[in-house]
């Protein structure tokens, strides 16, 4: 799990997922 600092009460988490033979960095923003 990758995270970035909480700004403006918003959490940002991400994970790099292999989709078939490509790589998607899926980033999710959610309110704290």
């Amino acid at each position: 799990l990758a995270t970035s600092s909480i700004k403006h009460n918003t959490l940002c988490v991400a994970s790099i997922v292999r989709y078939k033979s490509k790589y998607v960095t899926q980033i999710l923003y959610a309110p704290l």
Partner: protein
Amino acid sequence: STISILPTSLPQIHRANMLAQGLPAASKISSLVTKKSKTKWHFGIRSRSYPLDVMGEIYIALKNLGAEWARPSEQDLWTIRVRWKYNMNTPDFDQNANSNNSNTTTTIPDLMKMVIQLFQIEANNYLVDFKFDGWESSTGKPINNLNMSEDEMCTFSAYPFLHLSTRLIMELAVNS
């Protein structure tokens, strides 16, 4: 080719034309400056608390969220193997994961597993790492992912994992 850029549409020229018409807004309204702040990524979340305190806070957060975890072995106090119920309606945690509620005909695995581990980066600087650890079904049925092809295995959605991670991080942030 007679393809070109319309000169009067360039921001600088548009602003000059608006000023030339003596419109007060032209000097008041500034152009949008969006700082493309490069997102700085970290693995997991960092902590400077005392290691046992960090573990205590994580267990309390997991308990508050109704999760369950395997009893840690003496050799490895810094790793927590978590499991929680994640069903379609609300991703709540499984209060009675062991109950063989046979009436649930879940072919969809509804227990997400995660490994939470504390790492020391340097003196007084720790990192809590979250790792997705697959799915289980609360009916105890083995997940039939054996016959999946390599490609199929990797078409898994990270969003439930990301979502539950945010819930755990929120719980830790709120508690601390």
